């Protein structure tokens, strides 16, 4: 390395150190409010005052003895599972149509599929409310699920497009030269190649749905999803620790799910 190279290297290292410090400072600030919440889950008291008077795992036990809470989590699980599967199927279809077929309205289809990213949730919620009311559809977990398919769709389409853009059609054509019909070529050649991306897209749609509140508040019927139930309970300081304990459990489960998905992806 030349002398000038050495000279220009020093300020670079110094900025690196500043950036490193900045990263950890910001990370600490991002974790501070969450860490504070986590303290509630193990704090023996319902209010937080330092020093903590005692540590307890009772709140986690209270989670199990609060049926309404468990029920709402189950509802969220069902809505997220159903809506993410539908969104993944529809979205993968849109991505395949967009990269493999030329047809009028191709761009319109893509535009409409990602439009829910741009439409403010409060507007989408109001519009769906109008639709369901006009056709006398009662609000329920199904109406929430439909809304969640809609907001999961853009994520699936974008993830699957990114995967398919680099995937040459020659591979399917080769399969068809060897006698496969087009659906068979899709199933045996394309599907295995894009399956990991579909899992990633599905998990994204799942997490988006599971935590979604703005649409659910408008569209939920008598059975609440977890965020809607949580919102109703946030007024009461006495149940806050139980809610947070539940959130900790859910976060651990999400983390486990993502690690599992990563494993699956690697094995493939």
């Amino acid at each position, binding site marked *: 390395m030349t002398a000038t190279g050495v000279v220009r290297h020093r300020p670079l290292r110094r*900025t690196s150190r500043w950036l*490193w410090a900045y990263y950890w400072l910001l990370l600490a600030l991002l974790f501070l409010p969450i860490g*504070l919440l986590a303290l509630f889950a193990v704090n023996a008291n319902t209010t937080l005052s330092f020093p903590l008077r005692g540590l307890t795992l009772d709140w986690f036990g209270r989670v199990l003895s609060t049926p309404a809470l468990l029920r709402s989590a189950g509802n969220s699980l069902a809505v997220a599972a159903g809506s993410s599967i539908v969104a993944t199927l529809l979205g993968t279809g849109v991505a395949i149509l967009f990269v493999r077929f030329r047809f009028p309205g191709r761009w319109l289809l893509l535009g409409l599929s990602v439009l829910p990213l741009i439409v403010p949730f*409060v507007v989408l919620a109001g519009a769906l409310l*109008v639709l369901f009311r006009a056709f006398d559809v009662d609000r329920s977990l199904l109406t929430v699920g439909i809304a969640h398919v809609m907001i999961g769709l853009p994520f699936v389409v974008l993830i699957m497009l990114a995967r398919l853009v680099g995937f040459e059609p020659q591979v399917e054509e080769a399969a068809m030269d060897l006698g496969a019909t087009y659906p068979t070529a899709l199933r045996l050649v394309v599907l295995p190649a894009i399956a990991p991306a579909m899992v990633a897209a599905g998990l994204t749609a799942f997490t988006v749905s599971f935590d979604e509140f703005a649409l659910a508040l408008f569209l939920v019927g008598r059975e609440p999803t977890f965020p809607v139930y949580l919102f109703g309970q946030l007024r009461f300081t006495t149940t806050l620790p139980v809610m947070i304990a539940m959130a900790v459990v859910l976060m651990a489960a999400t983390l486990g799910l993502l690690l599992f998905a990563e494993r699956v992806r690697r094995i493939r």
Partner: protein
Amino acid sequence: MAASEAVARKPPRGRRPSDGVVGARRGTFWALLLPVVAFLAVFLVLPLVMMAALSTRADLRGPLLEPWAPTLKHYVSLAETPSYLRLLLTSAGIAVLVAALTTLLAYPLAYFLALRAGSRAALLLILLLVPFWTSYLLRVMAWKLMLGEEGVINSILMGTGLVDQPLSALLYNRFSVTVTLVYVWIPFAALPIMAALQRVDPAVLDAASDLYASPRQQFRHVTLPLSMPGVIGAFFLVFIPTVGEYVTPLMVGGTSGTMYGNVIQDFFTKAANWPFGSMLSVVMLVATIAVAILALRAVDIRRFVEP
């Protein structure tokens, strides 16, 4: 949409696919297309059209599907009541502030992860995204605990003797809404900037240093301009959902931190004046789509590569 057009593809290299292949592709085409078109038509286009139609209805009396004499009275009253449009502008202002602060704070983060963190970058990025896996409502709730009168910040201020009385100005206003939203969006905003920085060709930086550009000049004249698409992407990624936000102001905004989305929510829930709420929604939707189109134009990479 003619089926023959539908399956017309780019001219194939080599030979044309046989008729049987085209037939098979046609079946697949419709099988993929029909469900998603039906879904989008019924649950996205139809509701938005119905909402736009409802905004021309005088009131909510009678079945929704019954025809009515269209009126523009809600639009007229919007024009005559400046407070709604002022609130829309305020919400846009909050969104600009939140998006600008978030992008600014996220840039060094993205720069560090993309160009300086080396092999640990992936792990450090995951660490940054962990807060995302906590319930959104609880993350907002956490800021109530931070900023409230008995909150962390006031405890620290009181404990160090900086103030005698707890500050009540920290919570339930535009300030707390802004702080909370910036907090929520920072990790997300870092992603597009990172992607743009990772695409910067190191050879271009080498060329700059060969021409005696100092590290600072390299950053200002090479790295920063090349990362602008990511910066603009991050800005709008935060701006667009923030304009229509109603949950965060509902929780930490109080009365003075109310945003336009809260008014829409009120007209659909408490006030049950859906036609007026629809009119407010249409106005916001049109404004948001206009901004989104501007954003898509702005991210056009060529504009930043060419002088």
